[in-house]
């Protein structure tokens, strides 16, 4: 059953922008994801900022950052890359119902057990504002755990999600969005899909060959 639900996931290029997901539904799903996602030493060193349907201006700012990041990374003009027949990547950021921006978080108020360990000399960068960069990799892994759980819970309710990892990682480039006050880790869009990537892939034979590495390449049984 779980496998069947997870197999329904399809990458959304563009959402049905008129269909907004009820805030209470998103809240319940996020709460469930929070409840079931494990965290190293229970720090949960990240924060999920939820941008709703009425905050289109923020989504526009994020979209522009992604396009600019692609132009800088590939040294191209994105307007030329995306002709009028093509959907620009990141279009889903504009058309989604809710945009989740994951950022790093440090813990200023450790729980009683964490405090007990800290008093005994345990060293937790996740509880130190000046050292959270040391937790970057593990924070990303934990965001992956959370995002996968949330995505699965959404799929079960026939709500689509997509992930975007191409955005500027430098915090200085996010100064115009004041709540992004720590390093951004992941963008996740939520809504009802209108155009899926697999629909577009049928356009060319070559794009059909964009398959994932086979199982044996990824899993190494020693």
């Amino acid at each position, binding site marked *: 059953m*779980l*496998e069947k*639900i997870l*197999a329904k*996931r399809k990458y959304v290029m563009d959402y049905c922008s008129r269909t907004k997901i009820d*805030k209470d539904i998103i*809240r319940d799903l*996020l*709460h469930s994801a*929070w*409840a*079931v*996602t*494990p*965290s*190293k030493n*229970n*720090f949960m060193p*990240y*924060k*999920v*900022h*939820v941008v*709703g349907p009425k*905050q289109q201006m*923020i989504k526009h700012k994020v979209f522009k950052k992604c396009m600019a990041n692609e132009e800088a990374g590939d040294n*191209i003009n994105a307007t030329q890359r995306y002709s009028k027949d093509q959907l620009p990547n990141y279009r889903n950021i504009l058309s989604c119902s809710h945009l989740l921006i994951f950022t790093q978080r440090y*813990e200023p108020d450790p*729980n009683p057990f*964490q405090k*007990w360990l800290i008093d*005994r*000399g*345990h*060293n937790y960068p996740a509880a130190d504002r000046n050292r959270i960069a040391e937790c*970057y*990799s*593990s924070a*990303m*892994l*934990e965001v*992956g*755990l959370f995002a*996968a*759980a949330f995505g*699965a*819970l959404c799929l079960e309710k026939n709500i689509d999600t997509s992930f975007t*990892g191409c955005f500027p990682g430098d915090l200085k480039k996010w100064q115009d969005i004041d*709540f992004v006050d720590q390093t951004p880790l992941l963008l996740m869009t939520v809504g009802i899909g209108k155009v899926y990537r697999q629909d577009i892939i049928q356009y060319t034979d*070559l*794009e059909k060959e*964009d*398959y*994932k*590495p086979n*199982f044996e390449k*990824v*899993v*190494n049984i*020693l």
Partner: protein
Amino acid sequence: MIDKILSKRKHVMEFDRTAEPPSKEIVDSLLRRAWKVTPSKNNFMPYTINILGPEHQAEKDHLYRKSLDSEKYANSNNPVPDSHDQLNMPAYACIASCAYLLVFTDRWEDKPNPYQKMCWDELGVFHAPMTKDGVRSIGETVSLEVGMFATAFAGLCVDNGIDVSYTLNFRRNLDVWEDTWFINERPMLFMSIGTARVYREDLKQHGLYKGDLRPEYERIVKWL
């Protein structure tokens, strides 16, 4: 339903060494299903899952010791005696006692698929996982994807009555792994699976662990 499945997962402090290990066929089947349903940026899946089975006890014991060493290293400025003794906690015992240990490491793609190849050759789109240095430069993205794979695999395991635990307490720089023949790229996650003997939540009944609560929902999720 998914909620119920995922909430069945409990952190295992120690696995039952006397229990019959899940068969390789079952583990392989669950891994294949997780591989199938896990998304990956540009379809690279830039990681390898190295699997140590029941016959690899020496390797698991070695990784158990490496995790203890890592903790000592992280707390090297600590003049206080190791709190494990005070907690009577078999730290990382899950690594030594599990039936299977999955070691996730970086992987670079030496044979890109035709579309990825065309993107590089004709469009000039560089994808970091296509070179060894590239994949090392995006270790955080690899971590994110490993987390997604691990959630799918853990869900499939608990749905089939198999317990899982995660361990992140190890050093990532490759030079400390020269004594470990099966770790040739940067490690990202250890995941142990088997039949639990002691869950962490069982230990909460007995003392300080009671206060070890996750941050409240409102501190993690911020509605704008």
